């Protein structure tokens, strides 16, 4: 074969990869529509408040690790205390904060050190003290003070101290809808064909939203450009991607910001992996692996398409870069650790479809994209680019991407309709066109950077700082008004 033949083979490979990727996206769109239909049918008329008077209801521990959160921690805990449920406890894990996080909580909630016993099923950094309030209004609040060990370590400490059947792992700075737990618990009670081992929910972007007393009172489209791009990205990821995989019972990730798990199952697999920066993905993959290898029962990881949790996303280039870099390192770490699942029929649909999808279209995508760019420049240098073919294919890719994004926007409007008005729609269309040239290439670069960090640099386990603006400022403003 001469060089031109090799080029031709490469051309075909790139084209086939792109078509496969599009086929997966189309498949996602169809599956998510079916899943949403199923979910709406089942839950449209459900009175979730009735759960509060149920006889047989699983008990829940809400575990929220906190690190240097002194500015917002009180508002965040107040928000958690407002959650509607019958039998729950809130465990705040102060993960060796360097600021006054612990003292702020202790003072505000009138906490005292208690001798609360617990079994160390999972390894974690030493717990220095456990606090509970003498004020009965906060009697289901427990605060653990421990040495710094990272998010996974803090969650493991929280799981050790918790005593309930389920635990909800959340980011302490998230805003949870009051009925979120009621909705998340339902799948654990309404499926008698599968054992439900975990459930996840949709995360929405809270930047620019109005927040009063730890509640979203008015949803606004973010003002910051980076946050706007992420709104569309989250639509695609949650509304289309995760719902589609949920329909097939092939969901591999439950967001670390908001996920409900069976404590018993998580204890059996040894809790969160402290060495992983993608601990949320890793936990679900390991849980699934355990269910296939050990328990061999019919099981399900459920997903709730209702917007139940609101989070602040990065508003600047640096923080966004760090976040994406970490996500990539987490994904690579998990994929490598569980590589034996790849196209392994022993793991059923997970091994044959979900896991390969992660490998081929999440892990490899930025690399292939980058190689494609280099290859194109090479062809251009050698004068081997057929401009007609190039433009046709570019247009093909761009139009598909636009169609997929607008479908995600339509889907949101059709289902939850949180963003309203022509202004929002006009902005969104502009962003859909822009993101292909700005946001997506940047994401590719961030992701490649994550690859490089993972393979060649030392900071493969580092989280990096996530500087949040915090919601409390707005809250205080609202309170003063």
């Amino acid at each position: 074969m001469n060089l031109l033949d090799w080029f031709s083979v490469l051309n075909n490979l790139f084209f086939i990869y792109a078509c496969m990727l599009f086929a997966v996206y189309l498949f996602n769109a169809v599956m998510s529509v079916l899943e949403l239909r199923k979910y709406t049918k089942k839950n449209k008329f459900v009175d979730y408040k009735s759960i509060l008077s149920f006889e047989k209801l699983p008990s829940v521990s809400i575990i929220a690790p906190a690190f240097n959160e002194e500015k917002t921690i009180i508002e965040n805990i107040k928000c958690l205390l407002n959650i509607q449920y019958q039998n729950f406890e809130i465990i705040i894990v102060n993960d060796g904060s360097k600021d006054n996080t612990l003292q702020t909580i202790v003072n505000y909630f009138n906490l005292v050190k208690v001798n609360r016993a617990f079994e160390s099923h999972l390894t974690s950094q030493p717990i220095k003290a456990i606090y509970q309030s003498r004020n009965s209004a906060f009697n289901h609040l427990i605060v653990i003070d421990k040495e710094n060990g990272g998010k996974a370590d803090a969650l493991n400490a929280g799981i050790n101290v918790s005593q309930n059947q389920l635990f909800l792992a959340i980011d302490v700075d998230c805003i949870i809808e009051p009925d979120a737990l009621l909705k998340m618990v339902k799948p654990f009670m309404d499926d008698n064909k599968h054992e439900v081992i975990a459930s996840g929910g949709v995360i929405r972007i809270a930047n620019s939203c109005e927040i009063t007393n730890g509640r979203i009172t008015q949803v606004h489209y973010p003002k910051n450009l980076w946050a706007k791009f992420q709104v569309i990205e989250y639509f695609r990821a949650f509304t289309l991607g995760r719902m589609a995989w949920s329909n097939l019972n092939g969901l591999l990730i439950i967001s670390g910001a908001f996920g409900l798990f069976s404590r018993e199952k998580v204890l059996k697999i040894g809790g969160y992996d402290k060495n992983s920066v993608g601990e949320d993905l890793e936990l679900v993959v390991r849980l699934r692996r355990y269910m296939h290898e050990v328990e061999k029962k019919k099981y399900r990881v459920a997903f709730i398409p209702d917007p139940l949790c609101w989070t602040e996303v990065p508003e600047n280039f640096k923080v966004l870069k760090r976040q994406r870099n970490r996500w990539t390192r987490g994904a690579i770490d998990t994929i490598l650790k569980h590589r034996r699942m790849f196209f392994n029929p022993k793991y059923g649909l997970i091994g044959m479809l979900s896991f390969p999808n992660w490998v081929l279209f999440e892990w490899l995508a930025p690399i292939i994209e980058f190689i494609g760019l280099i290859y194109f420049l090479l062809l251009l240098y050698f004068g081997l680019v057929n401009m007609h073919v190039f433009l046709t294919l570019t247009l093909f890719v761009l139009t598909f991407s636009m169609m997929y994004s607008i479908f995600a926007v339509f889907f949101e409007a059709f289902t939850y309709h949180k963003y309203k008005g022509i202004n929002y729609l006009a902005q969104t269309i502009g962003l859909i066109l822009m993101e292909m040239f700005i946001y997506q290439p940047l994401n590719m670069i961030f992701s490649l950077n994550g690859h490089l960090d993972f393979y060649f640099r030392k900071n493969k386990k580092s989280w990096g700082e996530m500087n949040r603006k915090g919601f409390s400022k707005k809250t205080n403003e609202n309170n003063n008004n």
Partner: protein
Amino acid sequence: MIALNKHLKIWSIRLFFLSQIIIVGFGSYFYKHPQVNLGSITIVNPYYAQIATHSKDIPDWLYTVDYFTFIFVLSFGIILFMTIYYNTNKNIKEKNDKKSIEIYIRNIFTFLYPIEEYSESQIQQQLKDLKKIALTNHQRELLINTLRKIHSQTTGKVREKTDYLMGELKYGGFIKAYLHSPYFNDKLFALKVIADFQIPGFEKHILILTKKRNEVLHSEAIITLLKLKIYDSLLFLVDLKMRLTVWDINVIIKIVQELKIVNIDYQTLINSEIPEISTLGIMLARLNNRIDFKSEIQNKIGNSNDLVNEEACIAFSYFSGNENDYDFVIEKFELATEKAQFQFINKIASINNKEKAIKFLDWVIENQSFTQKVQALIFLLDLDIIGMNKYKESNNPLIRQSYYQVIDINI
């Protein structure tokens, strides 16, 4: 007529989508052929000449890419239009619905809380007015839903008036049409209305729905039959084709308690071979304090199904009251689920035979799980505060920790 229209609507939507698929499929074949022969009919492609000129220098695959690009652009346009339409329409619809509901509430409240005494003819006129402002199916749905909400939030005479109002609106035909509608949401709506206003006459059809494989319809039909209070024995549950979920069990119990259903056939339910039905029977017997079924419940302890075993243990410990029962509970302790074991500890700790209780609690502290140790120590604190001090220096660190927790938090 409403049901027929609904059937026609659903079929026309299906036909529309089918026709779109056929058009795209046919179009992708047709665009590169000069003509297509369908039997005796020949369809000529008027754009063939232009397409052929345009495509003669490019390979087939690239032309297919072109074709798909066109489809994507078209789809983008259509979805965008739908998004704008839906967004705008939803906003307008929300506003209109809000306005309509306000009017309905005003009218309903005039009827429910009259300022003056109305004559029969005036009442009839009010009813006529109410019917006049709800002409379309959607408006009727809104009106009925508003009435349902008021019905659920009121009691006594006002609630009776909402029942009367619902009857006088004479929406029987409308509800029947919805119950037979091919749309799932319509069926659910009808079931909700029938259940809330306890409208008779649909029992047979609802009983058929309980045997449907659709889990939501199945559950809703069960709730409706329960609320209609015509199958008080609950025996219809034994004949269901689908198994109940824990959710269903909770909902059924809630309704039974709210409506104070008393003629339940506990015997058959408890002894049912279906674990969920048996669980339901046991739970209902416990909640309704039917101690006469204690021996049936006792037989279910150790059942291979966790749900049945757990509820049987809880119910039995609730009913137990003599030495034999306590001995039985102690004997079966290890067979029980964790939740039931807690119940056992609670029960034994509160018996009159203090010596037996302390002996049992000591055994739990030495041999059972950490959370049970803590629970047993809490009881021991009341029964034998001096005796429990021996755990202060226990060799087992978990017992020591539990001891200090109990001393610290519970004193």
